[in-house]
């Protein structure tokens, strides 16, 4: 799975939690989940749970802490996907 493919998929994962829906289509690695997408910090947990289910991976506490923007989110997902191989 490429970064572009994951990014496209992530738009669907973020959709229920962002109040800034217009921005979803133009997200890139630098898009901040809380500041730009206006996601409630408590909902980051829900995004992690949804991503775990979607990619059949487990995101541990340390990896979860690294998720700040779209880029780091993709990094963590790719890392876990590679571990599954």
């Amino acid at each position, binding site marked *: 799975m490429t970064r572009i493919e994951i990014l496209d998929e992530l738009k669907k994962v973020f959709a*229920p*939690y*962002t*109040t800034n829906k217009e921005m979803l289509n133009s997200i890139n690695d630098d898009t901040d989940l809380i500041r730009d997408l206006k996601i*409630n910090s*408590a*909902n980051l*947990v*829900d995004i992690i*749970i949804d991503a*775990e*289910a979607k990619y059949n991976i487990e995101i541990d506490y340390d990896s979860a802490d690294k998720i700040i923007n779209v880029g780091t989110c993709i990094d963590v997902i790719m890392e876990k996907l590679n571990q599954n191989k």
Partner: protein
Amino acid sequence: MNKRIVVTGMGVVSPNGVGVPAFLHAIQNGVSGVKFIPRYEDLNFSCRLAGMPDFNWDTLKNYVSDVTFHGLKGTNIGYGLAAALDAWADSGMSYETEEPRWETGCVFGNSTADTEAMKNVITRVDDKEAKKLGSRVIEQAMNSGVTSYIAGRLGFGNKVITNSAACATGTQAILMGYEYIKHGYAKRMLVGSAEHVDPYVYGAFDSMRVLSRKFNDRPEQASRPMSLTAGGFIPGSGAGALILEDLDFALQRNARIYAEVLGGSANSGGQRLGGTMTAANSTGVIRCINDALTSSGIHPRQIDLISGHLTATNADRQEIQNWSKALGRSGDDFPLINSLKSMIGHCLSAAGSIESVAAVLQIVHQFVHPNINLEDPNPEITNMVSIYCLPLKMIKKEVNIVAKANFGFGDVNSCIVLSKYK
């Protein structure tokens, strides 16, 4: 302390009507909201009926953001939000605000979180999957879930309280909001209550043998307060909400005024003198009614209508006797009395607020709603009060003052007095 407190908005999710216009039509025409629930048959319950609102869950998208809607599972919270936000809009105010509304608070009650929604939580934890619960469970499991959603949506900055007093919850919430404004702490209070009787709570009532079980094939006839064939109550779900305001504050913004809350009282019979966890101490009930009249500054003779608790158990007879003793009125001299539960069942924590919305509507539209299913009044009741005090059909008449009371498990009582605004 001589502030007057008025009702300026109402919202309701009732088994026989969602929204005030539908509810008004239903109570004027004696429309029942009691339905057969096939699942209760599968679960082998003795009673298989419930007062269930025709509530379209997706309409909540009109009240809260998509993000809030996603993951909202608590049925009691959904009912409460709809009733509360309808009441707010009905009083002529907008949902949106940048600043907290420091002058407005909330007292909204409920019994318990949606146990059926919580069942999924329990299953997950037992399956060692607690990590998958996510962020939205606690806010809906906490008893203050309903007030948190309401107060957050409307930006309330004054006192926000979740009350719980079993079947007295709704009237108690109204009384607490009234007292808070009366004492000058807030200018406006959104008050009310919500209830969702899920199968687990329902099953426990069924086991107590307090539910009606002989009318499963005739749902609309099953809730029979004051009748000879009353054989227990029908659990109901829903929510009611009212906007209470300091009169001067309401007049300043040219608010429409539905009615005035003259006063009220809440007490307990102490589970003494015949009172128990499940039965009311009559001395406590009579004191509660008398204190409510004193607080309201009215004479018992001024009461045009009693909106009773009257659940359709053998406590109905005792309740009528208590009203009769408290008011010193009996026979033809007794006021008109009705039980909304004949149409919607017993909505437990939501009963007091839904019934209070009905009481205000009867004042506004000058009518007395019928008691349905009362073709066979209990002679032990008609020995005390005239049969003409128990209307079977809607009566159009002058209704100036209504006494509304509810009595709950734990031997708790609550009575409020509502008046036409003059």
